[in-house]
């Protein structure tokens, strides 16, 4: 019996039906029922637009971020069974994970690489949404939720950074919290609140631990739920405007009632799923589910690959007297650190605040309806150019901070002198 038959056989047994409610779907009606009668599957629509399935459009970046989030919750929970958030024990526990706990090193590797990948995936997802104009009406609010999730991701990464209590952890957080101290008016108080004192010590470790394992994951999980809910309510993934069909131009009450799916498919705005030309839509089971499963396996395989061949770095025990030279933040903050090396206020407070403000107001300022659902649409040349310049500057600063800065934050040429100690080496 091949596994597929084993599965359909089990789903059609009395026990199988009691679990899945609907047996293996054979008709379109049953394919819809399979989606809406399962708690896990009903999050997604019974039918989905063909455009949303195009990997070349979405690049699957949102789903990749979500899958990495799942991996991080799983591995993070495992790590919690051994980790102790104490300045005297934390580092020893990291060493235990490396050398004593079975698969401890491997789980930590997975957690670290998935965290880096998630930051990258979330950033790329944001770029994709911008370049395809997907934040435009009616999706403005979902872009805001996305900005919140982006900041939550950075917060999770930053708080997790302190927990190993090694040199990198201690000095990255010392620098990071001092940056917060430069904020106008509330800065010093905010720093004191974050650290639970004046310096990075036990109180700070306790606070970052609580933020890392419960507060921020809870905010992130809730945010993801709202984000995905709104994707559906706003009419599915963004796509170019289509010619309005006859059914759509009719009032809702006159819509054909012989559809195999119900009112849960109604979405607000100009892009409801019902009323579309049926040729544009395919059943989520199996078209969407299958693609999602494949992508999940690819993401897991990639994280496993990284975790097998590269170990997560762990520097010496935190030394509160001697910062490493140069002391570097994680790669996604190195652009800001490069700015901070010119001015702590501009690099640490003003520029980040400007970036966040620009991201928040963007969908409400850029109100043109053109170019939605197309990569680099002609009508959006100005927006695309401005955004690309900002991204290029950010990348340039990050590259400079990562590769061209050595001891005392002085200039080094990476191909002449040995590059400074970086993560992953």
């Amino acid at each position, binding site marked *: 019996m091949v596994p597929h038959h084993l599965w359909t056989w089990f789903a059609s047994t009395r026990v199988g039906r009691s679990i899945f409610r609907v047996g293996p779907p054979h008709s379109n009606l049953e394919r819809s029922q399979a989606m809406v009668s399962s708690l896990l599957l009903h999050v997604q629509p019974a039918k989905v637009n063909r455009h949303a399935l195009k990997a070349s459009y979405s690049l699957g970046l949102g789903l990749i971020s979500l899958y990495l989030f799942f991996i991080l919750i799983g591995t993070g929970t495992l790590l919690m069974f051994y980790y102790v958030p104490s300045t005297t024990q934390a580092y020893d526990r990291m060493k235990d994970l490396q050398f004593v706990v079975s698969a401890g090193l491997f789980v930590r590797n997975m957690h670290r690489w998935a965290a880096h990948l998630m930051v990258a995936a979330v950033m790329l997802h944001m770029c994709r949404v911008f370049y395809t104009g997907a934040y435009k009406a009616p999706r403005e609010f979902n872009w805001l939720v996305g900005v919140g999730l982006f900041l939550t991701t950075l917060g999770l990464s930053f708080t997790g950074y302190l927990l190993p209590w090694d040199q990198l952890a201690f000095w990255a957080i010392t*620098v990071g919290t001092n940056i917060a101290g430069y904020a106008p008016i509330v800065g010093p108080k905010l720093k004191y*609140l974050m650290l*639970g004192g004046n310096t990075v*010590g036990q*109180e700070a470790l306790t606070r970052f631990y609580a933020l890392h394992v419960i507060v921020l994951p809870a905010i992130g999980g809730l945010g993801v739920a709202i984000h995905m809910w709104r994707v559906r309510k706003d009419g599915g993934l963004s796509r170019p405007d289509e010619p309005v069909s006859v059914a759509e131009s009719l009032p809702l009450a006159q819509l054909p009632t012989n559809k195999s799916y119900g009112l849960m498919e109604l979405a607000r705005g100009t892009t409801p799923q019902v009323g579309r030309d049926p040729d544009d839509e395919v059943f989520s089971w199996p078209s969407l589910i299958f693609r999602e499963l494949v992508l999940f396996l690819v993401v897991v395989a990639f994280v496993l690959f990284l975790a097998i061949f590269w170990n997560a770095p762990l520097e010496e025990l935190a030394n509160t*007297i001697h*910062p490493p030279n140069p002391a570097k933040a994680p790669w996604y903050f190195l652009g800001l650190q490069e700015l901070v*090396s010119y001015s*702590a206020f501009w690099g*640490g407070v003003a520029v980040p605040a400007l970036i966040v403000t620009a991201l928040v107001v963007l969908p409400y300022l850029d109100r043109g309806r053109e170019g939605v659902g197309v990569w680099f649409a002609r009508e959006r040349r100005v927006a695309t150019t401005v955004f690309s310049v900002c991204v290029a500057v950010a990348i340039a600063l990050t590259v400079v901070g990562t590769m061209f800065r050595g001891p005392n934050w002085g200039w080094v040429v990476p191909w002449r002198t040995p590059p400074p100690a970086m993560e992953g080496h």
Partner: protein
Amino acid sequence: MNPKPLGDTAVTRRGFFQLSMGWVAGTFAVAATAIATVRFLVPNVVFEPAQLFKAGAPEDYPDGSITFLEDERVFVLRRGNTFRCLSAVCTHLGCTVNRSDKGFHCPCHGSVFNRDGAVVSGPAPRALTWFLVTLSKDNRLVVDKGQNVAHDKYLIL
């Protein structure tokens, strides 16, 4: 109370008080909870080294020496019979500065300070801080990191 028909927007005295009291009570409850939560998170006691500490006897420091005290992250400078104490915490982002030939430099973002702690180059916004040095009755140097002084203020013995 009989339910009013929909669309009746006339405000009665009782309705007005009920609504306004409701809003006042609700606002108060939310604000009190928020303030109490933030206040809860601000620690009243911190378990950190004291700001005021003894730095040994004056004789422990040779003439012309600059001594780094690791636990306190300060330099003690002696010239002749004068003593000063300089913070080793960079005013930029809190890294520990190192001594160099011409003064001090910070390894994190490259700030350079001269021997008086003044900024020569780099992103540091202020000079390194000088702390008040006094002598205790049992002939020990006492540094108060809570009191900043000018760079030319010495303890003269």
